[in-house]
């Protein structure tokens, strides 16, 4: 390889890895082979996105495109380390290590009737046609070069199906562990969720890993909510700080369905999240809650889109960004109201807190309305900590760093208060407080609040 890498060299390096991988594959259904080819062709034609493309204006992906990532083949991971990293809650659990399914770290034996949760490979073995219909219908190879690359490389992932009327009590955790490998690896997981009519569940997508890991995850997730289905989706992204993370979630909502998203982004060195919902049936409601926290040189790009394709649909978005050091955040939220989608409500709010002079945010709220009887609002603010409040806390003996920590936690709290799962709220609260510089650790305070809640409950 020459010292100067051209963009096409980068693409060819990824395609070479794919060709090598394909050579070792057993027989596959023809539709999968065809899609791999279509994905690879599309990826080759588009190349990696560059910053002249509006959608990627603020995000430089060279940390990915210039890398060389192998595919991983084994899912070995210390159970003790996994237990320390993952959420300690009662849940149905499916686990992937560098994209490879780990039966040992999964708990799939107590799934209630009406719930099917399988690794993609097994779902394909059992009935590949049932997967082939919905898979890729929402997120095709045209969506982005990364979606095309994912389609070309896809092997594993999670398929969750809820029969009509099924209520799942325990959360369903889909967790991705990133390992500290000798050489970096990549994975291209798929998640497919089909929630039948009036079904209800909570899905937690959790990304975490060994601190020294530096892998590339390129995830495509599709969620289909039938009439009246209610899904709460948490994405807790705590990947190691050198991990590269590109992910899209594309939701399709039928009549009276309700989708609530919590996009809690703490980890990753370079992160791009796309969250899209298609509000296709009257009465469909989507709520997007987001919190991103960046430190060091982290780059976190969040793109959201609510497509109001039917009348009487509602979207509500609240994203908060906290950026320290030289971190760079991007918020691009868009609400589109199609022609004749009357009586819709679309609200969007974004607030950002810059903790350092060198932290940066690019915030771009967008509204596109082609109907006339709608209620829409959007707004974005960016500010620093209220110095008067910092002073007031200092006059009580609280040092400047802790005062700033308390106020930062307070800023994040507005989103965290919406989190219905305490285990996640506390974890993020601790992460935001504990990740602040040394002596910033406010975990004792969190515990006190918990004790107070218990006391109040007595």
């Amino acid at each position, binding site marked *: 390889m020459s010292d100067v890498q051209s963009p096409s060299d980068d693409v060819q390096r990824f395609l070479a890895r794919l060709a090598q991988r394909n050579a070792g594959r057993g027989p596959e259904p023809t539709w999968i082979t065809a899609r791999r080819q279509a994905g690879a062709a599309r990826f080759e034609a588009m190349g990696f996105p560059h910053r002249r493309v509006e959608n990627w204006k603020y995000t430089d992906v060279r940390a990915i495109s210039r890398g060389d990532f192998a595919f991983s083949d084994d899912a070995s991971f210390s159970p003790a380390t996994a237990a320390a990293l993952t959420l300690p809650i009662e849940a149905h659990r499916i686990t992937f290590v560098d994209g490879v399914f780990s039966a040992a770290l999964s708990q799939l034996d107590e799934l209630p009737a009406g719930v099917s949760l399988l690794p993609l490979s097994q779902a394909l073995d059992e009935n590949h046609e049932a997967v082939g219909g919905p898979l890729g219908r929402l997120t095709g190879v045209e969506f982005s070069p990364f979606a095309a690359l994912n389609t070309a490389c896809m092997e594993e992932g999670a398929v969750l199906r809820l029969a009509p009327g099924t209520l799942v009590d325990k959360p369903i955790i889909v967790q991705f562990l990133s390992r500290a490998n000798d050489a970096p690896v990549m994975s291209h997981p798929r998640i497919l969720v089909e929630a039948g009519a009036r079904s209800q569940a909570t899905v937690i997508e959790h990304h975490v890993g060994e601190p020294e890991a530096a892998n590339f995850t390129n995830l495509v997730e599709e969620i289909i909510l039938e009439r009246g289905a209610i899904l709460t989706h948490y994405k807790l992204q705590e990947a190691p700080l050198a991990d590269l993370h590109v992910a899209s979630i594309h939701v399709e909502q039928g009549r009276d369905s309700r989708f609530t998203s919590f996009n809690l982004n703490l980890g990753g060195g370079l992160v791009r999240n796309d969250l899209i919902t298609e509000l296709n049936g009257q009465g469909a409601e989507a709520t997007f809650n987001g919190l991103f926290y960046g430190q060091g040189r982290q780059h976190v790009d969040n793109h959201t889109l609510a497509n109001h394709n039917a009348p009487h649909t509602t979207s509500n978005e609240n994203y908060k960004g906290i950026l320290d050091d030289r971190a760079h955040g991007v918020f691009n939220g868009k609400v589109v109201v199609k022609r004749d989608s009357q009586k819709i409500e679309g609200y969007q709010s974004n607030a950002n807190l810059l903790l350092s002079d060198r932290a940066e945010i690019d915030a771009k709220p967008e509204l596109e309305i082609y109907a006339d009887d709608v209620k829409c609002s959007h707004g974005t603010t960016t500010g620093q900590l209220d110095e008067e409040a910092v002073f007031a806390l200092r006059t009580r003996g609280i040092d400047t760093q802790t005062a700033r920590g308390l106020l930062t936690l307070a800023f994040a709290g507005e989103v965290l208060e919406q989190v219905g799962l305490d285990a996640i709220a506390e974890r993020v609260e601790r992460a935001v407080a504990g990740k602040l510089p040394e002596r910033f650790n406010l975990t004792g*305070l969190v515990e006190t609040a918990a004790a*107070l809640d218990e006391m109040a409950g007595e």
Partner: protein
Amino acid sequence: MLEVKDLHVTVEGQEILKGLDLTINAGEVHAIMGPNGAGKSTLSAVIAGKEGYEVTQGTITFEGKDVLEMEVEERAQAGLLLGFQYPVEIPGVKNIYLLKAALNAQREARGEGEMPAPEFMKLVKEKIAFMKMDPSFLQRAVNEGFSGGEKKRNEILQMLVLQPRLAMLDEIDSGLDIDAMRVVAEGINSLRSEERGVLLVTHYQRLLDFVVPDRVHVLVDGRIAKSGDADLARELEARGYDWVVEESAA
């Protein structure tokens, strides 16, 4: 315990305090009174360390330490606590968080460990009952949406939990109805002790009916123009400030 000598303070180029002397001993309650614009609030703000005040001359010592060399939080940790005339709203920071963080910061500065949670909760519950505040205030954001009276009670609650060596209360009586005034005054009186000093800054004598001071000082044009005992406050109530202003000008 507190010694202010020849204090000159400038705000935005304008001299507000022009050679103020004040000594407060442990066990004493002092009241600083005076007409608007005399510099009453400036004194407590400078002692607490608020930015924007330039000390051009003079000294402030607290228990032998040079206050002007201390950081804002160090002053508080040493036991110098200011109750604000206009307490700041701090959205999202629960009262209980503030109390715990503040108390532990003081304990840490004194080389003591954190107070265990049950002991802390017991202390806070006792003090909040004394201030006739609903425990739900602990879970609310500091001062957010509080009425004027609730904010002032909350300042005193912080004092009761933190037990300062010198409590400075800047116009703690403003905006209080008579019932709230009684509760706030009881709070202040409960702080009185042999080891502690209290500095009340007030425009009106009314509070001093409930918290009877040992010494009353009248601040006129940046200096203490007259000092006396509690009777002086009553005289000011009856006669107004003009006679002191005229006396000091003469």
